[in-house]
């Protein structure tokens, strides 16, 4: 029971991470396509400016909780995905620094170098997270000693790549919607128009990904055994539809909320499908890492549950306050810090 609660919490942490960092990764990826001048670029940096750091801590928490609750899964996952994870971390490092450093020197070359870091540092993580999670859904060649025997290029299979492209598109839509909240004038119009164009692409990609998941993974087994779980998928679709409907009405906040529901449900759909495995072994089901053979002791899980029950609501509370306080339209240079 305790293990199951932690498994779900683990999934929730990833879901919140995707919802929150998803929008600033999306904005960074869209930057070369949306910003037409220096001011608009700065607006795009500032749109995620007050939040990117706090958002990224959800990744640290998801990693930390994997370590705390499922140490063997943490050990296998991150040593097994070594090169991909290093690439992800280096990209996130460059992106983080680009926020702070870019505007500090008035020099075109300096700025364009950091712009490149911002774009690559947003696009690559989005892609890699998608590739990684698709591969987790499918399973990895994990041997009896809990070691992933595959390499970086084994991850780049068609299903993994589809997952990557899907994540990029999903985050771009999410980012365009967030930019619609924070930008004004032409940039806002452009962001909304981009969101409208991205929406059908996301729809096609999610359907393709689900269909491919159905034939390529065992993710649907839990759903077919407990059909009421399909509600997660229904909620995902509802979120995506809501995003489009509110977008058409020009209600950016609500459209972004729809997209957030969509992303969270996509993540939860995958995690619930994995249950009770965290890492599926494609070599032998008995070698998979599950909540039964990879969890921490009951005492640790209990203490950590106490910690999570106190702090996670608190974090959600003050981060929501911060988003409400700072998630307002940027009207002029005066509102820019970066």
């Amino acid at each position: 029971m305790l293990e199951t609660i932690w498994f779900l919490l683990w999934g929730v942490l990833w879901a919140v991470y995707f919802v929150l960092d998803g929008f600033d990764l999306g904005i960074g990826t869209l930057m070369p396509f949306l910003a037409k001048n220096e001011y608009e670029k700065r607006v795009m940096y500032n749109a995620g400016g007050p939040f990117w750091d706090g958002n990224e801590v959800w990744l640290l928490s998801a990693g930390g909780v994997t370590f705390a609750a499922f140490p063997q899964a943490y050990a296998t996952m991150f040593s097994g995905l070594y090169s991909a994870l290093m690439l992800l971390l280096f990209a996130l490092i460059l992106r983080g620094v680009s926020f702070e450093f870019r505007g500090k020197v008035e020099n075109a070359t300096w700025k364009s170098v950091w712009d490149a870091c911002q774009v690559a540092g947003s696009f690559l993580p989005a892609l890699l997270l998608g590739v990684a999670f698709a591969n987790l859904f499918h399973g990895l060649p994990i041997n009896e000693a809990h070691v992933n025997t595959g390499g970086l290029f084994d991850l780049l299979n068609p299903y993994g790549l589809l997952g990557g492209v899907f994540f990029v598109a999903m985050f771009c839509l999410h980012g365009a919607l967030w930019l619609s909240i924070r930008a004004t004038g032409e940039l806002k119009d452009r962001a909304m128009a981009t969101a409208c164009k991205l929406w059908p692409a996301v729809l096609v990609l999610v359907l393709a990904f689900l269909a491919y998941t159905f034939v390529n993974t065992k993710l649907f087994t839990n759903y077919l055994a407990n059909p009421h779980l399909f509600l997660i998928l229904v909620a995902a679709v509802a979120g995506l539809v809501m995003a489009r409907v509110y977008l058409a009405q020009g209600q950016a906040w609500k459209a972004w909320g729809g997209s957030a529901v969509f992303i969270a449900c996509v993540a939860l759909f995958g995690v619930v499908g994995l249950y009770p495995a965290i890492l599926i072994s494609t070599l032998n089901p008995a070698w998979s890492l599950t909540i039964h053979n990879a969890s921490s002791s009951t005492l640790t899980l209990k203490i950590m549950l106490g910690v999570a029950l106190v702090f996670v609501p608190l974090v959600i509370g003050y981060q929501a306050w911060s988003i409400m306080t700072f998630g307002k339209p940027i009207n002029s240079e005066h509102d820019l810090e970066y």
Partner: protein
Amino acid sequence: MDVLMLSRLQFAAATMFHFLFVPLTLGISVLIACMETAYARTGKDVYKRMAKFWGKLFLINFTLGVVTGITLEFQFGTNWSRYSAYVGDIFGSLLAIEATAAFFLESTFIGVWHFGWDKLSPRAHAISAWLVAGASNLSAVWILIANGFMQNPLGYEIRNGRAELTDFVAVITNPWAWNQFVHTVSASFCVATFFIMGISAWHLLRKQNVEFFQKSFRLALYVGMASTAIVVLQGHIHGNLVAKLQPAKLAAMEAHWETQTNAPMYLLQIPDEKGEKNLVEALPVPGLLSFLAYNDFNAEVKGLRDFPAADRPPVSITFLAFRVMVGIGTLMPLLMLFGLLKRDELTSYPLYLKAMIWAMPLPYLGMQAGWAVTEVGRQPWIVYGLMRTSDAVSPIAASQAGASLVAMVLLYTLLGAAGAYLMFTFARKGPVDA
């Protein structure tokens, strides 16, 4: 090189680079919060300008600290997976608590602080500065409790082929961790105060913004005097703890080969690790080593030769790093003391001000050396007495570890250069009117 050595180098590079930024953050965040509190209380513009000027340097530093910290959260899994699986039940939960209790608070409110100058009242803005400062120091508590477990494992039992938590209170009240916390945080305040004093001295020498930099210098001076005193005095207590809990580390710190009572400390000493002796031993202070270790000039101090060769830490690095740390620890309070005596006539002592500019790197070097003593001196153990470093490394290819090490060093060097350039530029520019 094998995976073990590459992974150790990578961990050293990742932590040491990360730790160029952390100490300044720990100290200067508190000082900035003080400046903002003064502004909120008195409404005097100079305090706001101080908070903004030092805050700008703080943000550059903070960003590099944050992004290099991300790597560390995952390093245990990527390069030390056997360690992670073996002690994750305890160690992993401490890292997770650090992230949930401290990192969220710190990272959310640094955004609020950065973007909130015009949106929040001075009071609310000062509160967000305190939240950032408090959360940064809270993260130090948790990571040092985690490190404390590696140095002095407590509250566990070996079950199911791994270390499992049995007593959480023992883990979080580990005396090693709390000593390390006091030592690290007071040393961090040394870094921050020398930083502020060095930059202030540069401007004072040029007679620029004299009032502003005198105020900054003095604030840092008072805090710095206290911090250097704490770091040195508590360092002695910390040394006692090392003697008690990790006698091999103590022996390596002093390149002490033969077990003896009334053990002297040599002011000049050159160890010969291969020959298991010292090439040079000069200027002995009789009984000092015995006293430093056990508060008793006649106490017996076990020598390295009485430890099995397989259980000895690398002597040369531990010895040298310890000497560097102690040397800097001796110099710092003297510099502070002089400043304290001449605090009202600083500009009449240009030589002292110049010295304070050049003293800026000292506490940084002292901290790096101190951590080298702590971590290299703990070898060959990753968890003292419980797990050897060689048993902890991931089953990855040497080429993977090698490639990531090279990439990391390249990336960090470039970032460090860019960061240093920005720090220099803005430090020289001085305060702009708020």
